[in-house]
């Protein structure tokens, strides 16, 4: 373990802040990184079953595909199954699809690849080498995580290879059995086909395949030969279950003899419990036990509703939270950090001579300035946090939807004192996440409750109110911008962003480790945009840690996309240029420029103003390597702003599931518009004031625009699509409102400044 530990210290830092990946990586040599990881399926096979790779298990009764990346609604299980099936030649509908048990073989080699200090549009050899190299520490650290739109980039080759290895091994087994060279055999629909047309089911070959060395020198099929991937009619494997109420989410799992529970914890996260009325709760129907948990208290009852009711009766008294008491104090701290050298964190973009340009403009009276704000945001997926935990003398079992199964395993081991090899995490499909399930406080609480009733499974469910008020939110942020224009062009762009650091807050909770160094998420989405502005600077300032914060769909780009693109729009307007034309002129990256051109063509762009209270806004953000442009049309009606239409163009490199990509892109747009228009967390007395959807509404059907989506494939790498649809939505809307009304909105949510239908 010594080697791994050292490697861990170096690379965790690299992962979080994007320092020199190559310098950190060389230290391990390549031996550990190349060494194959044991196939976990081999430990657990029934008689006659073959676990040909960690991703494919075949037995006499059927085929199981292991899809280790979590499904939170983005279609990950379906995508992973289809990647294997494409090479294995089966219909995934005929297989069992399961995330399997978490383990080192399922490390995520791509989640760290954009943690390198190169912007995504940098396609130089050095940048690419650094990105590829990040798979090495991910493997060594056993990072099995779902996030960063990384599932497809990570598994595109690995799962197809797994399918191909399994297929060739099955053919080899048949070849030996029938004395025919493997090259003369074909496969189709879960069968090996002999030259004379005889078919043998894979399942009948499982035992023989298990007895031979897997065939590993396989060549992946050319995309032109694909029969599933890239096809418009490729259905999601989970669609029928989700439309018939038969999909079993974490919250639906039922274990024999389980009891039900809920908790309430101090909404001033990390604050003390001063007292509660235990007797009142115990006297209520169905209540079995009141159990203290960290920073809170739980109730075990014979159904969830009894537990919810008893929680209300506890009437908990809370101590102060360990951060400023209310929103006013939080904004003050954020405002004080920006442009304050004591809070300087990093500057990854500094081109030309911005100070000189601003000084020159000053003497001519032409410095443009603005400031922006984005609030704390809850993730608020529809399925509230829940977990079932059963603890026996020497084992812990956990059923929960999670993006971080190995962190869950280790934390449960720590709390229960059971060795982590005896902690089993059964990952469940999630009713949404948006980053919420990169946290695990709820599992820790469920473990504490289960320890109080050893041997009995405890199903712990947060009420919506508990979920809203214990969300580790997207950080609030502020930005100050200055700029110059000259001769119809944008010439100077200076953006200072102030925010609490996200990565150390989150990683600290997961591991107890501190994370030294700067926090790249403060400027992700603004420092790394593909524009060639002569004088161009982006600086991150780190506000003190306040409300504990986390990853929220599109992470840093969720706020920075708004700051960067809105400010660009303001400068373009000041220059008197066309918003789309000037973005295209400034764009320094081919793939991105084509995206901008395509969105203009898709929307038939002819300028921002389209007459009688109507306006159009264009916005662009490169996030997770996906250049994404959106155009939004609005009308200023007597009843407020109506969002009429949205056009989205993105480049993902290679399209695997067009129907799902389209859904992820407009889903990202709608999630972005929801928060841009009407959602925020405000704090009073350390607690969020928004406790349920009535105060945190998001978009509803009647407010949803018609959407048109187009996906391009010019990019040189395959990309994931769960997040990039979001960042351009808020600026495109704000820019459209400006075009329609002349009012520039610089603070989210916009409804504080203008009415919406």
């Amino acid at each position, binding site marked *: 373990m010594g080697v791994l530990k050292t490697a861990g210290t170096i690379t965790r830092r690299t992962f979080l802040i994007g320092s020199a990946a190559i310098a950190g990586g060389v230290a391990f040599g390549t031996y550990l990184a190349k060494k194959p990881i044991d196939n976990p399926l081999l430990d657990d096979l029934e008689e006659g079953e073959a676990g040909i790779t960690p991703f494919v298990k075949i037995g006499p009764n059927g085929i199981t595909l292991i899809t280790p990346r979590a499904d939170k*609604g983005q279609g990950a299980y379906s995508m992973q199954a289809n990647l294997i099936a494409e090479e294995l030649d089966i219909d995934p509908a005929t297989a069992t699809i399961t995330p399997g048990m978490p383990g080192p073989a399922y490390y995520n080699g791509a989640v760290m690849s954009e943690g390198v200090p190169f912007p995504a549009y940098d396609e130089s050899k050095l940048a690419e080498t650094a990105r590829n190299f990040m798979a090495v520490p991910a493997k060594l650290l056993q990072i099995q995580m779902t996030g960063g739109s990384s599932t497809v980039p990570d598994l595109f080759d690995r799962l197809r290879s797994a399918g191909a290895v399994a297929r060739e091994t099955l053919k080899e087994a048949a070849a030996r059995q029938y004395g025919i060279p493997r090259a003369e055999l074909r496969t189709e629909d879960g069968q090996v086909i002999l030259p004379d047309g005889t078919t043998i089911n894979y399942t009948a070959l499982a035992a023989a395949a298990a007895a031979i060395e897997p065939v590993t020198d396989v060549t992946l099929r050319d995309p032109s030969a694909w029969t599933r991937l890239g096809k418009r009619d490729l259905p999601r494997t989970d669609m029928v279950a989700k439309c018939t*109420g038969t999909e079993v989410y974490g919250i*639906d799992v039922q274990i024999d003899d389980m009891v*039900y529970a809920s908790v309430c914890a101090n909404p001033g996260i990390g604050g003390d419990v001063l007292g509660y009325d235990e007797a009142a709760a115990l006297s209520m129907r169905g209540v079995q036990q009141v159990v203290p948990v960290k920073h809170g208290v739980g109730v075990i009852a014979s159904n969830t509703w009894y537990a919810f009711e008893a929680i209300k009766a506890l009437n908990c008294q809370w101590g102060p939270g360990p951060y400023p008491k209310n929103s006013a104090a939080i904004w003050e701290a954020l405002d004080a950090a920006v442009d304050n050298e004591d809070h300087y964190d990093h500057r990854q973009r500094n081109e030309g001579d911005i100070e000189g340009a601003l000084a020159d403009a000053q003497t001519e009276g032409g410095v443009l300035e603005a400031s922006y704000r984005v609030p704390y945001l809850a993730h608020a997926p529809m399925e509230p946090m829940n977990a079932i935990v059963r603890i026996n003398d020497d084992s812990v079992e956990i059923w929960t939807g999670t993006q971080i199964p190995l962190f869950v395993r280790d934390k449960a081991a720590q709390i229960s004192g059971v060795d982590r090899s005896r902690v089993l995490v059964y990952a469940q499909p999630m009713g949404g996440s948006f980053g919420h399930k990169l946290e695990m406080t709820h599992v820790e609480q469920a473990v504490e409750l289960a320890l109080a009733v050893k041997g009995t499974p405890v199903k712990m469910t947060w*009420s919506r109110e508990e979920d809203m008020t214990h969300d580790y939110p997207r950080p609030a942020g502020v930005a100050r911008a200055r700029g110059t224009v000259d001769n119809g062009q944008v010439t100077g762009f200076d953006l200072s962003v102030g925010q609490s650091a996200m990565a150390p807050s989150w990683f600290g909770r997961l591991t107890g480790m501190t994370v030294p160094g700067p926090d790249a998420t403060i400027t992700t989405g603004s420092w790394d945009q593909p524009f060639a502005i002569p004088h161009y600077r982006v600086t991150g300032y780190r506000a003190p840690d306040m409300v504990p914060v986390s990853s929220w769909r599109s992470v840093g780009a969720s706020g920075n996309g708004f700051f960067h693109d809105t400010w660009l729009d303001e400068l373009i307007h000041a220059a008197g240029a066309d918003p789309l034309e000037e973005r295209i002129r400034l764009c320094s990256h081919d793939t991105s420029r084509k995206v901008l051109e395509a969105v203009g063509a898709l929307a038939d762009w002819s300028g921002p103003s389209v007459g009688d209270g109507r306006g159009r806004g264009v916005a662009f953000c490169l996030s997770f390597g996906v250049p994404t442009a959106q155009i939004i049309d609005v009308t200023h009606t007597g009843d407020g702003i109506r969002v009429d239409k949205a056009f989205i163009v993105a480049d993902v490199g290679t399209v695997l599931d067009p129907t799902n990509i389209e859904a992820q892109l407009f889903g990202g747009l709608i999630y972005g518009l929801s928060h841009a228009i009407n959602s925020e967390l405000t704090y009073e007395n350390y607690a969020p004031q928004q406790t349920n959807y009535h105060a945190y509404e998001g978009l509803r059907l009647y407010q*949803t625009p018609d959407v048109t989506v187009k996906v391009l494939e010019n990019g040189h790498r395959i990309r994931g699509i769960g997040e990039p649809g979001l960042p351009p939505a808020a600026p495109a809307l704000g820019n459209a409102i400006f075009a329609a009304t002349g009012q520039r909105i610089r603070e989210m949510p916009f409804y504080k400044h203008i009415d919406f239908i």
Partner: protein
Amino acid sequence: MKLTVDGTSYEADVPADMPLLWVLRDELGITGPKYGCGIAQCGACTVHVNGLAVRSCQLPVGSLNGDVTTIQGLGSPEAMHAVQEAWVEHQVAQCGYCQSGQIMQAASLLTLNSDPDDEQINTVMSGNLCRCGTYPRIRAAVKTAALKLNRA
């Protein structure tokens, strides 16, 4: 207390003020209807009582005055209801957690109005929240479902 759900009769030993949602989920083990908010804001818990949509998180089981149909009684994977078929055709679901409620709401709408216009779809379906933002496909799927039902 007796109740009929998806054609089966049950006897549940629960207080009259317990919301139907939790009787279904925790007492009867029928988990198609989902808990999202508990305060009539999201629609994830929508079921039919006597064929029309109600928010089961708001209905005390003691005031139930008819048979309950849940998403699992509307159709099954092997024999889907027209609305479910339309949902699959349009590949509506993302996380899918809200979709039981969306589908039950849409089926109820189409029972009352076999050919709703955009305005009517907007009005009736806007009580159902979808955090994944599947709304554009919900809109299209309701129209397809209407066609299917009218053809049948």
